[in-house]
Structure formats: C-alpha cells, structure tokens
C-alpha cells in the first residue's frame, strides 16, 4: 500500500525523516534508509534544511525509491521561482515521486551562505495551489499537460507560533488550496497542541486532511536549550527540560519522553499519525517505533 492509500484507509501513520548529506555521496542515504525500511510508512527528505546546501531532495527521494522506501519530497520556495518549481515538480513526478510537502522554507540568513538571494516567488499556500493545479492537468500558464501528474500534497503547520488563531486560519487556507496531509512542528507542549487540535476538530479540518503530529526525540538537554533560544516559533514545556536535566542517561530519557508523547498523541482526537524527526539521529527512529508498539507495514 502506498502512503496515500494508507492515509485514505485511516490507519495510524508513522513518518520518518532523513536529512541528505552535504556531499554527493548517495550511499549515506542508502545507509540511513535501512533504519526506515519496513518500519515507517514514508520518509521525509528535507530540502536544504536551514538553508544549508545539501544533496537535492529530488535525487535523494529517487534513491529512497530505489531501495524500496516511500519518500515524501520536501519542496521549498526559498530557492526556486515558479518556473523552477513547476519543472522540479514535473521532474519528480517523472521519477515516480508523488508525495510532496510544500513549505515556504527557512530564510537564507540562517544557513551557511547568508549572502544568498532568497527567491520566495510563491509562498507555501500558493505552492500547494500550484501542485493542485498541476494535478488537474494544467500548468500555471494554463497550458495543458499531455500526461497529468498525481501529487499527494502535504503541508506543514506550526501550532506553537503566534498568533494562535492565525495558525488555524493558515491551516484552513492550506487545506483549501489542496493539502491532503499536514505535518506539524515537533510537539514539546502538549497543552497548546491539545488546544490546537480541539480547534482543528471544531473547524472540521481533520476530516479534510490527515494531521500528523511531529515528535522530536532529543539526545541532550543542550539541544532543547538551543531550540528554545535559537529556533524561532518553538515552545518547549519546562517539564521536559527538567526531566532531561535530572536524568542520569539523557539519551534514554529522551527516548522515553518521545514514547510517552506518542502514546498521548494517539489519544487526541483528530491526530492521524506521527512524524518522527530526530536531528541527525536517524538510528533512533526504529527503536521508538518498536517501543511505542507501532509496527507499520
């Protein structure tokens, strides 16, 4: 079953995430894919995340397809104008990559080449609409395509950034534009997330798209502190910081927190799956999936 069919059938979804290497070494992805094969339903391939140059997401997604893992290709608006976006989408479809996650992208200032020019020709809502339009057989120029691509369009949502209600409006826009699944930013504050999900259910959006909650296992308390300070738009409950600080083995505690979180998330109405996104710690995903009792496939 493909990722799309699984979402449509309503099973609990588990997604992983791979960050491509900063070189042309495709074997890194083949190596990492071993952690995911037969464990998760699909794997996100980041697109030059935090504006640092990496192996392209299309090529990485193709490598994943070759080894039998279903990719979700991330596509950002930072590096491409509408011509490149459509061309890349067509290229992806030709290679058999159908799941795309449409993002606006991190600003180039945060990357390793802050002097770059950001494009931002479209924003994420418009990117979703573009992919949806292509699904209907037309390019943005209204030209008809001979072969119609079949994208399964996803988007991101950040329930933790302010203002709270604007986040719901934005989710509404994304769903209206054609997003069929939503991956949220990592949950580190259950209260806000629960409140957000309540609103989402109230608006009926959980029926129009599958909400996959982000879970980020962390290795050390340092990582949490760093996120709290440096990464904009995240909220971290002090409870987790305290727990990690007092733990004798922070790695183990991090895994424990992630598993508890998954179990709590499963109980929230409207949550259709999870998206596990450890930073540079892919090997932990199978452990968490197994211990949380989520055998996929």
């Amino acid at each position: 079953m493909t990722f799309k069919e699984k979402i449509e059938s309503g099973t609990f979804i588990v997604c992983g995430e791979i960050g491509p290497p900063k070189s042309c070494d495709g074997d890194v992805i083949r190596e990492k894919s071993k952690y995911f094969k037969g464990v998760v339903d699909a794997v996100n391939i980041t697109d030059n995340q935090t504006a640092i140059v990496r192996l392209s997401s299309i090529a990485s997604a193709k490598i994943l397809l070759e080894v039998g893992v279903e990719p979700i290709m991330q596509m950002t608006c930072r590096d491409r104008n509408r011509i490149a976006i459509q061309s890349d989408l067509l290229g992806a479809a030709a290679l058999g990559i159908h799941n795309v996650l449409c993002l606006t992208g991190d600003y180039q200032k945060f990357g390793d080449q802050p002097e770059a020019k950001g494009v931002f020709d479209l924003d994420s809502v418009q990117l979703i609409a573009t992919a949806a339009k292509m699904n209907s057989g037309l390019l943005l120029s209204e030209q008809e395509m001979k072969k119609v691509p079949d994208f399964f369009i996803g988007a991101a949502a950040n329930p933790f950034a302010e203002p709270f209600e604007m986040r719901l409006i934005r989710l509404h826009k994304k769903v209206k534009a054609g997003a069929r699944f939503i991956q949220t930013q990592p949950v580190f504050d259950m209260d806000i997330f629960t409140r957000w999900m309540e609103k989402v259910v109230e608006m009926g959006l959980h029926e129009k798209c599958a909400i996959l909650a982000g879970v980020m296992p962390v290795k050390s308390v340092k990582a949490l502190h760093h996120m709290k300070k440096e990464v904009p738009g995240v909220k971290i409950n002090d409870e987790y910081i305290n727990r990690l600080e007092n733990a004798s083995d922070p790695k183990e505690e991090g895994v424990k927190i992630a598993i508890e979180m998954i179990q709590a998330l499963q109980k929230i109405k409207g949550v259709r799956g999870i998206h596990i996104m450890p930073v540079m710690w892919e090997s932990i995903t199978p452990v968490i999936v197994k211990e949380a009792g989520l055998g996929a496939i």
Partner: protein
Amino acid sequence: MSFEFVTSGKPPISPREKKFSRFLLFFEDVAKVPVFGCQHCGECILSSTAFICSQRCPKRMRNGPCGGTGAGGSCEVYPERKCVWYRIYYRSKMLNRLNLLYKINKIHNWNLEGTSAWLNVFMKRIDAPIWFVRNDKKKVKEMLSDDIQRKN
C-alpha cells in the same frame, strides 16, 4: 476545471498606460507609503490585510505568517522587528475583519511590480478591494467560498 491563481499578466501594459501608471503612482505613493508601508507590488491586497502592507515581510508572504513568528510576535528574520502578519492579525481582529484573512491571495504577478494598483483595479487586472466587510457581504462570501475560485 482550473484554479485561478495568477493575476493575468496579459494584456501587456502598453507604453502609454505605463506613463499614466507612473503618473498615478505618484499620488498612490503619497497616500500609501507613509500610512501603510506600501512596497509597490502593484497588486494591492491591503484591504484584506487590515491595511498593513504584507510585502514588508522579508519572505514576502501573501497568505499569512511563516512558521517562525517568535514569542511576542517577533519576526524570525529580524527579531527586532514585529512580524507583519502578527500585526495584521491583531489589527484585523480590532477592525472586525478577521474573516478576510481566509481569502487566498493570488500568486504575485511580477509584471505589475511598480505599477499603479489603482489603475490595475480599474483595468480589472486585479481583484477590487473589499472595503466594507458588512456592506459587501455577497462579495466577501464569494471571496471566501469554500471552493477556491474556479474558472468554469
């Protein structure tokens, strides 16, 4: 069935019109730049953004804030600034225009960059502004219709 998302760039703006556009732009600048922080995108969406120009966002977001708005509404790129969409949200709330934020703004037509938005409205190149939310109920409804505006 298709989604109408790009403001049509055709017909190309004629040289004569360009001149007139530049003339109008002078007055538009006087009105819009100091008050709204207009950036001359030529495709004015001020009426749906509570009269704050969204194009001052470093990412030029036309459809709401990116995921990086920090605590207290600071912009992710320039933390010393307020996120424009944060301000737009609170002013929309104050002015009772929140439902306009649900409107999906079209992909920017760069042909219109630096032209007079007033003229573009007049020439029906871009959507007319929605001034009075309550008086324009039908229009607002159209704009917010659940299905994205579709051509035939």
